[in-house]
């Protein structure tokens, strides 16, 4: 698709964006391939080696159960990315559908959808996620659903705004005038045109999802042990931050780098895709 090619071409010129792309690619690579590389089972307890610092056997040290932090961080990449991708996937899909319907048909459908989104939006993110998880029960799947719902209003608004602005454009009105069916108009013309703001929103939401999962872990409603997510590892490490700083440092480092790269990428994409900024 020409659209993607153009993005890639432009990204090549933007060094900051490139750093983001490489970082994101690396994290995804670790997430998918990592578990095959990790030297230990992430849940295996080496009980005679609890709270040991980095060594040749345990590159990032061990935690209070003697589990290998390196292997856990790698496994955590998988879990955290999984959470990010699925929950943003849920939010983006719902938002896309609602936004499209809302923006295109307007009228009472629009009103209804947007008021529901207003209701969701008026809830503080973390409290909304917290209550949803509390209702559904804390586990990986429900955490993702909760974060997905939290992100839905933002996506809906983004898509709706884009749809409305595109709809006003001449070529759409003329397409309708020559008798092209509505759903065809949507699919053929509107969707590609709203992709730009949508993609930017996705990269930003991905980092938001990882942070929200971390926050839920702090509140005791994140991923279930013994499976590690970076957020839950970091939260569990708080008690040991002073005695065994490596337990905290490595998951924190990975969270920071990942979110950092997602944001860089998002920023660059925004600049690149914004037609007003085309130089």
């Amino acid at each position, binding site marked *: 698709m020409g659209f993607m090619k153009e993005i890639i071409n432009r990204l090549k010129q933007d060094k900051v964006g490139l750093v983001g792309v490489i970082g994101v690619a690396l994290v995804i690579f670790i997430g998918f391939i990592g578990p095959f590389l990790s030297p230990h089972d992430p849940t295996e307890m080496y009980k005679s080696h609890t709270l040991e610092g980095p060594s040749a056997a345990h590159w990032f040290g061990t935690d209070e159960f003697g589990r290998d932090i390196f292997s856990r961080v790698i496994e955590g990449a998988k879990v955290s990315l999984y959470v990010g991708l699925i929950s943003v996937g849920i939010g983006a899909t719902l938002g896309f559908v609602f936004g499209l319907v809302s923006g295109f048909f307007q009228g009472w459908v629009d009103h209804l959808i947007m008021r529901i989104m207003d209701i969701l939006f008026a809830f503080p993110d973390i409290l909304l996620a917290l209550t949803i998880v509390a209702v559904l029960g804390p586990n990986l799947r429900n955490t993702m659903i909760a974060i997905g719902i939290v992100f839905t209003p933002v996506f809906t608004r983004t898509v709706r705004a884009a749809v409305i602005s595109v709809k006003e454009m001449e070529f759409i009105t003329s397409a309708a005038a020559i008798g092209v069916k509505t759903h065809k108009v949507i699919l053929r013309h509107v969707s590609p045109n709203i992709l730009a703001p949508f993609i930017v929103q996705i990269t930003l939401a991905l980092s938001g999802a990882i942070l929200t999962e971390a926050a839920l872990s702090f509140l005791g409603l994140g991923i279930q042990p*013994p499976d590690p997510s970076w957020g839950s590892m970091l939260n*569990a490490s708080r008690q040991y931050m002073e005695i065994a700083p490596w337990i905290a440092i490595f998951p924190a480092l990975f969270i920071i780098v990942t979110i950092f790269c997602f944001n860089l990428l998002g920023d660059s994409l925004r600049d690149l895709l914004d037609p007003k900024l085309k130089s």
Partner: protein
Amino acid sequence: MKKWFGFCVVMAALSIALVACSGDDASSGESDGEATPSGEQILKIGNDQEPAGLDPHTVPAHSSVRIYEKVYESLLTLDENMELQPELAKEWDQPDDKTYTFTLREGVTFHNGNEMTAEDVKYSFERIMAEETASIAKSYFDKVESIEVVSPTKVKFTLSETYAPFLSYVASTNAAIVDQEVVEENGDLMQTAVGTGPFKFEEWEADNHVKLTKFEDYYQDDIPKLDGITYLTMKDESARLAAIRTGEVHMTTLASQSIPLAEKNEDLTVKDYQSTEYSYVGFNVNKEPFNDKKVRQAISLAVDRQEVSDIVWKGDAVPSGPIPESMGKWSIDVTEEEMYQQDMDRAKELLAEAGYEDGFDTEITTASTYPDMVDTAQLLQEQLEAIGINAEIRQLEWGEYIDTWTNGSHEMLVGRNSSGNDPDRSIGFFFSTDGSANVWGFSDERVDQLAEKGRTTIDTEKRREIYNEAQERLVDLSPNLFLVSPKKYFVLQNNVANYTPTANEPENFDETIIE
């Protein structure tokens, strides 16, 4: 543009002022535990949980008990050897098995100036026993038939049948003597507290602090020494650690993980005591495969309690049976029990005999609120893998956890119990067929008999034998896996003197002073 500029200047000035204040505080704000400028001795305690109401008759939460136990008193109290001692009753006797009379201390007043009389005693117990109070102590006094005021200082209780735990329950903090007038004025006792104890309740600001002040007219001279206690709510462990290190509070509780750090600090003293709590794994004995005693025993044999102590409690926990060590004479030495000798081969054999030679899949439910429970669950999961049991951890938020506990909708459940005042709680309350906390579906004729006998036997030595047998039977049948009883800690500034925590009264500040 000017609007914005003006706004920015004001805000910038404000923020500089802020930074400046916070800067000089680093030197001047350090109280280092010294008494307040006026020379008042106010003990500041970093409190890990917010109290959940102050009614001694209805609120079981420890965060509340630690506060109202200083404001209220009961007729009797228990000393560190679990022996009865006088409190508001200066003496008591038992003309026959079913009758108790208490002679009250004279000249005791409530904090509002009202005199404490036999009428108040009668009122307090009737309040506990009244259904609409929904008192947690109601079941303690189900056997009470009538309460009679003999004279202003004498009150007589008549029971419907012999009930051995009666006096221990009278000594419970939940059997506090309250003032009728106060209850009627306020409707309930959740927000206010007027008792006869050494400290008066002054104010409670939610999620912020509870203030108690010295009760000048306390009937014991020279008690308390302190002018007041301020409980500052600090839910986060790292906040409490930082606050005690910098002298912002005089004392606080910390988890075992932080204790080595406090011990290293020269300005701090660590005091510990064996708690009345023990951790356990509850089985739903109605569900397969836990309906088979052999499966439960196999799990007991596969579990390494020492490891639980070492990893979850940093070594500061002792193996416990149904009655933890801190209950003194009532508890048995479980280390010799067959079920406590880790033996993988025997465990596998038992599983095979029960028909699970390949193990099975199950679920361990735990509460996310308590890191020690989550850690215990993770450790058990790992230990059980060795005998082929694949457990998944289900971590619940507290409200749902309690619900699961109540409904028995779990398979294995990690929890922590407190043993209370009387062994009847540990045996009858948790394990007799109709015990109100028997959520396990457990029913054993012999245990029921023993619980009943324990309740109706007054002679201490005989009672002890009964409960010994009951404990051994419970350990063998393993409806619960009794794990370990941890130590608890208080960390204090070196200048806090005359304070020693004990299992049944960890926070007695009667003699405490700040030097």
